[in-house]
């Protein structure tokens, strides 16, 4: 039927290539009957030329200028017939004025990449040195919508039930110790799904996987000569294309299939996939940066510019994407819808998300159209939306990010107060009791699931380093230790760095367990950093963004070396997932609404029912009543003593016909630090207990 339609016949010919007027929407390049539809926007160009390459070849096979009648509004569209879709690469030349002060940077000598390119060639194999003499480094390719998802779809795990695991695709398995067949790739990560399932997490948050250039700003360390790369990838080349270098099959152009297979297999294991997305800036940098795409297509539309035509730098990376321009807003929406629909992505974490709430002059908006659109978008309606609610321009919106009832936030205040509390600072008991409850002071109208609780993330120390270093040690970054944060709230436990001192190491292990414990017992969404469960260290480096080496890669020998920590962490994650009383969707009411004789939460101190919130206190206990859980559950008592000595605590009752059993005691070495429900011993004295120094004790109420 379609073959007979008049709109599938060419009307023009150039150098043997037949073409006709195209469809204006959707933007990008799409396979249609007998050809490929190309559509691209530019508001200020005077003309546009489609440039077609055969894959990997330096010179184009043909350049076809869009006839003026092919332009509708600001959109150039064309169908080109009989192309070898598997072998095709494409880009555009735009003609127009060169006047940077007015945001016009057209240069028809450059072939620019389609902002909607679904696959981008040029960095097909990770770390393969590019040919720098090549004029057109990054080119669009076609994606094929023929993946067999079978019955898969996004999992839609209730937000409050999530346990997030933040991971870097390459760093997770690049180290030879991973033992996978395709280290550092989507396929390699797939081989580790059984490990993730055993650990117990049910969502993995991947550091950026949109196409980026690992060679951007690459340099050799002045002393060691080691290559320092754009390893983390927070610098997007194309928002619709997966990172080819993260696919073992990227050399064959099959990164789309490999990534989709990973998502499908993770879903089969009950694990959601959250993508860390970077819409605050692009890889084009400031006015000295390369013209790759956006700048050469419509500079003043895509970027926030100063009155002089320079780039505002709210991202700290040279430029700022003009997210609340209607065209850019639509691009962001199109992009996320694409990932949700085509890749079955379960949610997104937005890097420096506060930028998404700035207007076209950079001023914060009270009702940012982009954030509202994302919150109410029909395709994204079940996707998790998580904001890093600050930016590099000084906007800090933790607790006040425009949420529209949908957005969650990385809770930076949780991280800061948890770290201070864990290292034994006084005056934190009141603050930490609020954080444990899901931070109602920040999210009262949004619920505890608005709070992504974390103590460590890719930015900053690993958990092991948090309790091994007082100061950052970023010399390996080649920036004279000037990069990375200085407000780490870390504590080295008496010795800076690695030591053989058994006392120091024992203390470090205990504090790390306390951190995991605190995280898993707090209301909200807990997030773990990759490797914290096996004592991953970056040797005190708190900004390993450029280390595609042992510093940034997970050392899997930690599985055997730190078996105790792994067992404890997995135990705590499973404990959380087994007990709905820990995962409430609403804030506590501090009263008995279930008729159990106990309030939903009650706070205690060294004396039951008498919490000490005074400035010198370092100990707080709480009892969660199982009758108030969202599904029938046992009651739980938690005592957290961050004082340097053991403290006696009197206990509230476990409830009629129940006894307290010990689940966790971080003052004990493994395996007595954690008991499964079946093995949990009955507490000898049901009324009083000693909570060890800098330790957490968890009891569960069970039938006598």
């Amino acid at each position, binding site marked *: 039927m379609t073959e007979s339609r008049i709109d599938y016949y060419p009307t023009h010919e150039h150098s043997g290539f037949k073409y006709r007027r195209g469809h204006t929407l959707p933007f990008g390049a799409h396979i249609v009957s007998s050809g490929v539809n190309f559509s691209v926007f530019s508001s200020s160009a005077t003309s546009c030329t489609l440039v077609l390459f055969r*894959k990997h070849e330096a010179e184009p096979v043909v350049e076809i200028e869009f006839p003026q009648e092919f332009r509708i509004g600001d959109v150039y569209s064309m169908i080109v017939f009989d192309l070898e879709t*598997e072998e095709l690469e494409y880009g555009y030349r735009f003609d127009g004025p060169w006047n940077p002060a007015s945001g016009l940077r057209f240069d028809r000598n450059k072939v620019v990449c389609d902002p909607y390119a679904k696959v981008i060639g040029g960095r097909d194999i990770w770390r393969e040195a590019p040919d720098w003499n090549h004029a057109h480094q990054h080119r669009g390719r076609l994606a094929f919508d*023929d993946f067999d998802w079978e019955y898969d779809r996004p999992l839609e795990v209730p937000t409050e039930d999530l346990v997030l695991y933040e991971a870097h695709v390459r760093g997770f398995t690049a180290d030879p110790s991973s033992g996978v*067949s395709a280290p550092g790739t*989507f396929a390699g990560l797939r081989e580790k799904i059984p490990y993730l399932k055993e650990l117990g997490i049910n969502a993995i948050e991947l550091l950026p996987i949109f196409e980026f250039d690992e060679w951007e700003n690459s340099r050799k360390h002045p002393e060691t000569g080691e290559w320092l790369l754009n390893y983390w990838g927070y610098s997007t080349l194309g928002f619709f294309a997966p990172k080819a270098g993260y696919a*073992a*099959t990227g050399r064959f*152009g*099959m990164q789309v299939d490999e990534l989709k*297979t990973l998502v499908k297999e993770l879903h089969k294991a009950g694990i959601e996939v959250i993508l860390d997305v970077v819409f605050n800036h692009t890889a084009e940098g400031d006015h000295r940066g390369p013209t790759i795409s956006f700048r050469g297509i419509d500079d003043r539309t895509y970027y926030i510019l100063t009155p002089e035509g320079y780039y505002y730098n709210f991202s700290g990376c040279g430029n700022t994407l003009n997210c609340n321009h209607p065209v850019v807003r639509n691009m962001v929406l199109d992009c996320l819808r694409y990932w949700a629909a085509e890749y079955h992505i379960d949610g997104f974490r937005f890097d420096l998300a506060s930028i998404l709430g700035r207007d076209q002059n950079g001023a914060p908006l009270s009702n940012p159209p982009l954030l509202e659109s994302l919150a109410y978008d029909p395709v994204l309606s079940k996707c998790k939306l998580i904001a890093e609610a600050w930016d590099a321009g000084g906007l800090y919106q933790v607790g006040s990010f425009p949420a529209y009832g949908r957005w969650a936030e990385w809770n930076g205040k949780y991280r800061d107060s948890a770290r201070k509390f864990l290292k034994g600072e006084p005056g934190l008991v009141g603050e930490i009791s609020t954080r444990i409850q899901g931070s109602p002071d920040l999210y009262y109208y949004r619920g505890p699931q608005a709070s992504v609780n974390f103590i460590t993330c890719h930015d900053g120390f690993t958990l092991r380093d948090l309790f091994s270093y007082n100061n950052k040690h970023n010399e390996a970054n080649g920036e004279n230790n000037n990069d990375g944060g200085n407000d780490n709230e870390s504590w080295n436990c008496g010795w800076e760095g690695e030591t053989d001192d058994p006392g120091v190491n024992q203390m470090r292990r205990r504090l790390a367990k306390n951190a995991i414990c605190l995280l898993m017992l707090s209301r909200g969404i807990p997030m773990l950093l990759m490797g914290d469960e096996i004592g991953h260290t970056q040797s005190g480096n708190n900004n390993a963004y450029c280390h595609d080496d042992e510093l940034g890669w997970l050392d899997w020998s930690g599985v055997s070396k730190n078996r105790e920590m792994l067992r404890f962490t997995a135990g705590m994650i499973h404990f959380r997932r087994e007990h709905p009383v820990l995962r409430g969707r609403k804030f506590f009411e501090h009263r008995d609404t279930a008729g159990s004789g106990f309030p939903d939460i009650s706070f205690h101190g060294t004396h039951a029912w008498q919490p000490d919130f005074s400035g010198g206190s370092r100990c707080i206990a709480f009892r969660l009543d199982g009758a108030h859980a969202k599904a029938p559950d046992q009651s739980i008592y938690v005592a957290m003593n961050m004082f340097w000595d053991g403290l006696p605590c009197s206990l509230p009752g476990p409830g009629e016909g129940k006894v307290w059993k010990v689940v966790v005691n971080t003052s004990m070495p493994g395996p007595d630090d954690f008991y499964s429900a079946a093995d949990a011993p009955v507490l000898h004295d049901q009324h009083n207990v000693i909570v060890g120094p800098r330790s957490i004790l968890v009891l569960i109420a069970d039938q006598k």
Partner: protein
Amino acid sequence: MALDIQPSVTGTTGRLKLTGQLDGASAPAVRNEIEHLLTQKLDRLVLQVEDLTFMASAGLRIIIFAKQRQPQLKIYVVKPQEPIIDTLRKTGFYDAVYVQDTDPGDEASVN
């Protein structure tokens, strides 16, 4: 290296013996052969690939094409070389086909 394609049909089993390299240039010819085979009532499609030294993404897409064109069709990939098995595994296609060392014969499969 060019691709040699030898199609045959026995009963409800279609076969393609592929020799050489299946790349973007040769893929359309394979696809045409499969389209032609699928005009007949087939239960099984056997791809004999022992002498296939390379299969580009275009080749894998043909397998998907055949599967989606006729979902009940059982596709056998017989004696693939290790790089092809590797690519099938990493892209998830391995589970959609029967990869084995011997030709399944002409009878209806019990797999």
